[in-house]
């Protein structure tokens, strides 16, 4: 494997030395481009009290290309599908090389606080969310209890 770009080294150092509140990320020893991520469910959201595991991978083209992120923990969220894939603009067309691992994870934390059923990935969840938000949030809380502990 080619030498790790300085940017990735720096980002990793900073993530470890000053982690963002409620977020932790640590690289695999055998692949420094592959991170294990934990995001705590934001207070006030149906994911509160949950601890969500994600994987984050920095492709060769990073930072010209967005990191690839996926939920490993099951989550009931209109913008996350069954496989944990995430619909978030900054991971796709709104990616900018000025963004970082930290900012991406903060965006994900924000996405947990503010689900967006109008731009869904999990169509069934989004439908439930639009039709009966209270019930959907109850389901989300239930899943959080069940899977994200």
């Amino acid at each position, binding site marked *: 494997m080619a030498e790790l770009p300085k*940017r990735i080294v720096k980002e990793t150092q900073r993530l470890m030395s000053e982690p963002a509140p409620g977020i932790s990320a640590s690289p695999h020893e055998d692949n420094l481009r592959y991170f294990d991520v934990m995001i705590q469910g934001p207070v006030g959201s149906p994911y509160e009290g949950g601890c969500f595991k994600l994987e984050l991978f920095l492709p060769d083209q990073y930072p010209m290309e967005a990191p690839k992120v996926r939920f490993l923990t099951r989550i009931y969220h209109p913008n996350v599908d069954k496989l944990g894939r995430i619909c978030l603009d900054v991971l796709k067309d*709104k990616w900018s090389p*000025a963004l970082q691992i930290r900012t991406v994870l903060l965006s994900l934390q924000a996405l947990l606080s503010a689900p967006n059923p109008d731009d869904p990935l999990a169509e069934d969840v989004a439908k439930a969310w639009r039709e009966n938000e209270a019930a959907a949030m109850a389901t989300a809380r239930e899943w959080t209890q069940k899977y994200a502990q």
Partner: protein
Amino acid sequence: MGAGQSRRNSNASNRRGNAANGPPGNSTGGGGGGGGGYPGVAQNQQQQQQPPPQYVQYWQAGQQPPPQTQQQLQQQPTQQQQQYQHQQSNGQQALYYMQNTQQNQRYVPSPYPAPFVPTPYVPYQGNVQQHQYPMQHQAPPTMPPQHHHQPIEPQRTQTIRNQVNLKKPSLAIAPVEGKTDTLRLTFTLDATSPCTATVFWGVSELREEKNKLMCPMPPLKRVHFEKGLGQVYSAPENELLRLSDYEGGGALCTHNEQMASYPLVIRLETLTQAGRDAGHSLDELSPGCPLQPWVQSQTTYCELVRTPGQPTDTWGIRVIKQKIWVNEVSYELQDIYGIESQSCAAKDGTSSDSGAIDTGDDAGRECVICMSEPRDTAVLPCRHMCMCAPCAKALREQTNKCPICRRQVESLLKIVVQQSSSAK
């Protein structure tokens, strides 16, 4: 283009439209000869010895375009088309500038966006504006500063060497000892050739008369400065500001852009090479007279800021804008975002490469892409100085969006911040 078209379509034609506007690969950065010219963007360089960056970008203030600006228009067509295209573009230019002049004479929708007022990004609306341009040229909307910018009408950019610069942060006004009613103005300036500074209180500017300044009070004297960096102007004893002359000073705290009236205007003037060769002297000119072709000047427009306090109010100065006059063209100076942290880095003599655990401060100086080299390249037209030159080059091969605001990149501008030891 129909406003009713889908977002996707209008986006596509936006891209086409911009491609036709100017060669996307065009970089102003490499151009402009070396040399120790200097810039108006030095406003944040507090240290006196700190020489400002070599290249500066100015935005044309809607007057007669200098010849270089038309070259861009001529680059694309084949030789056969060129002549036609040239005529056509001249025609458009003429229309555009005439329009501006008319507007200026009516009153003042300024032909360029107000400084320091980035506007929010509104998807695709700017496109419509662009296509109407120049027929419905409008004054830019004023919105609270944000990271995102609304696409504004295309502006041509070019690099100019500025000979005189007033350092904005150095502007100060404070009571003279023992008199609460009398204030002394001080500021610091840089000059690469001998210059004069003239201070005007309560003036209006006549833009159609080559920026002549009309001053109801007797004009203040020119103060002469030699060539040099960090020279201090301190108002002479007989030219202090007496608040009683201005009914306590309340009127000095507001300006009127439409009437082009400003509480405080400071004009730095120097001779152009042609002016020196022709034997002109700045003393020929009465203060505030219309700007001459053989003069290069920088004018700073300010208002006072009063902070009520005991026992007396304290006063400060807010810069409204700065303009320079070069070769009979007036340009408005715009800040380059991110240059100040770079200057700090140069000042401290530290490099972001220092190895040790990085502090938060460091993040403001390093290239946002590689996070290791210092930033030295600004993106135009949005003026975000956020990358090192190699990363900027690499970025252009992949995308044409600014990493900070995602606005279309028209060109890159490399800014050289010299260390003081190498200053001339």
